[in-house]
């Protein structure tokens, strides 16, 4: 799972008030500026950098981050209807939608998070996780505040479940982000940590700005998005990882505060658009770990998306509003993998268990490892032009040439 802070080495974590923030950070980002030298110094000092101070009462210049939203309808009496996600919020004047980052101002709907990065790190692509997309490369990973669901086990709730003005942020317009990704040697930009759907306009423009520089674009999302904006997005991004939270409407209703059906529909759209797709299923003890549910999931993936779509079963740790449950037993994850393997999926992984053999990619024909991993580290790649070195079996994915 692509957690914002937990995966950082505690030894290198710097308290927010001592972090080597840039000058504009100290000013509360009233002025959109960012010195390259300061940034690189900061990045070098920490191995990554983050400028998040969750829940800090930041006073930012709101106007610089405000753009008219692209997917909404105007209604009588200054109401608007958002058509970006299946929630379809009808929003009164001066109010916000469920995501908390879109506001109706006199009948015009605005995103308040355009270029408003509250988090930025250089991460291994395996952290997203993408296992079949340029393994061993770095992804310049960004997020804004906000989310269009409210998962009880959210590990990034301190940015996903807050409003933009409640978290410190930097001004990071598309051309600047593309340049930074290039300068830091990243093969891709990852839109992640919170929920990229809610910062759709910024993500879309960043993807378009970075493509000419040879930077790929990957999206880490819950897949709660309507068809039209999704199809448009698929035209400009290279890979999408969907957090499929569970495989029952009840789970989505009670734990996620969303619906399953629109996510399944979105997965079909992604597949039809030809974007590289991987799925993560966070296994939460007692809530979504029933054998029948897991088997139904595997069957659906195989029949609707095909056996080559990677499926990651990842380990849950107590977070946010689900602190009363234990971490997922490793045996449960292994059982989930066994079920999906038995149903005929070719690439089933176990995640959040560093060193587990279930992190490796195995050739479905000769069964030998073709990508070996420990945690986010690549230990060996045994591929030749996207084929197993041992038996020449094509391994689907996006591989380095």
């Amino acid at each position, binding site marked *: 799972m692509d957690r914002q802070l937990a995966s950082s080495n505690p030894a290198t974590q710097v308290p927010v008030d001592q972090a080597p923030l840039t000058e504009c950070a100290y000013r509360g980002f009233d002025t959109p500026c960012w010195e390259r030298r300061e940034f690189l110094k900061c990045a070098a000092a920490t191995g990554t950098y983050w400028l998040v101070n969750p829940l800090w*009462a930041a006073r930012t210049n709101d106007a610089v981050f405000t753009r008219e939203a692209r997917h909404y309808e105007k209604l009588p*009496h200054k109401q608007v209807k958002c058509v970006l996600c299946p929630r379809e919020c009808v929003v*009164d004047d001066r*109010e916000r939608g469920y995501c*908390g980052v879109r506001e109706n101002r006199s009948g015009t709907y605005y995103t308040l998070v355009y270029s408003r990065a509250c988090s930025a790190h250089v991460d291994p692509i395996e952290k997203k996780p993408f296992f079949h997309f340029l393994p061993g490369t770095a992804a310049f990973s960004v997020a804004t505040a906000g989310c269009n669901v*409210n998962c009880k086990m959210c590990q990034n709730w301190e940015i996903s*479940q807050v*409003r933009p003005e*409640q978290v410190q942020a930097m001004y990071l317009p598309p051309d600047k982000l593309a340049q930074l990704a290039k300068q830091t040697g990243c093969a891709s930009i990852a839109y992640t940590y919170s929920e990229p759907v809610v910062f759709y306009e910024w993500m879309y423009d960043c993807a378009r700005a970075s493509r000419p520089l040879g930077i790929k674009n990957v999206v880490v999302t819950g897949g709660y998005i309507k068809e039209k904006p999704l199809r448009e997005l698929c035209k400009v991004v290279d890979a999408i990882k969907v957090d499929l939270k569970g495989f029952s409407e009840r789970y989505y209703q009670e734990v996620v505060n969303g619906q399953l059906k629109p996510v399944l529909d979105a997965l079909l759209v992604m597949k039809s658009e030809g974007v590289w797709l991987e799925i993560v299923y966070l296994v939460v003890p007692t809530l979504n770990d029933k054998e029948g549910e897991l088997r139904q999931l595997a069957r659906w993936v195989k029949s609707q998306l095909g056996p080559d779509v990677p499926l990651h079963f990842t380990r849950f740790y107590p977070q946010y509003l689900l602190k009363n449950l234990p971490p997922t037993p490793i045996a449960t994850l292994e059982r989930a993998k066994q079920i999906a393997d038995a149903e005929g999926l070719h690439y089933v992984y176990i995640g959040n268990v560093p060193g587990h053999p279930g992190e490796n990619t195995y050739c479905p024909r000769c069964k030998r490892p073709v990508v070996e991993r420990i945690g986010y580290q690549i230990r060996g790649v045994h591929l030749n032009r996207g084929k197993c070195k041992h038996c020449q079996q094509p391994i689907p994915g996006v591989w380095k040439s």
Partner: protein
Amino acid sequence: MKGAGLDGVSVHHVTRRTFCRWVGAASAISLGCSGAPETPPSSTTGRSKVVIAQDPKLRDTRGKLSPQRVAALLNRALQALFDRDHPAEAWHQVVRPGQVVGLKVNCLAGKGASTSVELVEAVCESLQQAGIRPDKIVVWDRLNADLESAGFRIRERGPGVRFIGNDVLGYSDELYAHGKAGSLVCRTLTEVCDVVINLPVLKDHSITGVTIALKNLFGAIHNPNKYHLNAGDPYVADVFMLPPIRSKVRLSICDAFTPVYQGGPSYMPQWMWPFNSLLVSLDPVALDYIGWQLIEQKRAEAGMKPLRELKREPRYIFTAADAQHRLGVCDPQRIQVIRI
């Protein structure tokens, strides 16, 4: 969740005629008992008092609120609620000198559909007369910008009454949870105020049916946008149950000078009426129930559908009264309405 109507039959709504008959009867009863020894109103036992204080001459000929009449109306309402001869005695039932008193106003809709400046001034004046120093009074809402749009001038420090948005002090480090709600609570409430007086506005709400006393505390949390699902049920009640909120909110004084009966919570002048009233209660659930009925009554007069038919009946009011919440009562037989 169901509530009990006048006849004891479980119903969701009260018709206009029934409501008027009940209000009249309740008023008569309360008048008849006015000489009886005071029993402190309770939100969990016995009957809850809701005072509806009205002054038809609250506004001048240009429609402007008279500060003197607003102050007089407020003091009459408080005296009626606590059955006290002097306003300061009534206020002493709520606050004590030395306490920091927060006034939670409702300013999101801007001027015209927010808590009136005149009412806030009157409350501040009364509190000072009751011995609360002005620098111990904090008027707050979500954002400084919201307060300013409603006509308040921001004053974050200094000797006088303070006016601050939650964006000044931010939110608690601790995540508070109850039922389906999990939120951070503004530091103004958790760290600054000893007591909170709730100053909502009587309004229709396009998603949750109505927004009155209970829902006004959405302005105390960091994530209110997450809690409008299912017409706010059970979220509104769950948020009010968060420990800092439940323990500090003592009194609700609802600004019903110009309520919104359709199109709320936004400012909708075509759907507002000059009710020139205050609704005052120690019981936010009872106050919400009575306020909801007033809005339904006005909607019926205007030929509009009841909220239930529009799938935005405020069921959260019943939830707030249930055994898991016990925030007050919404059984009309257990609410004593006092009209003055």
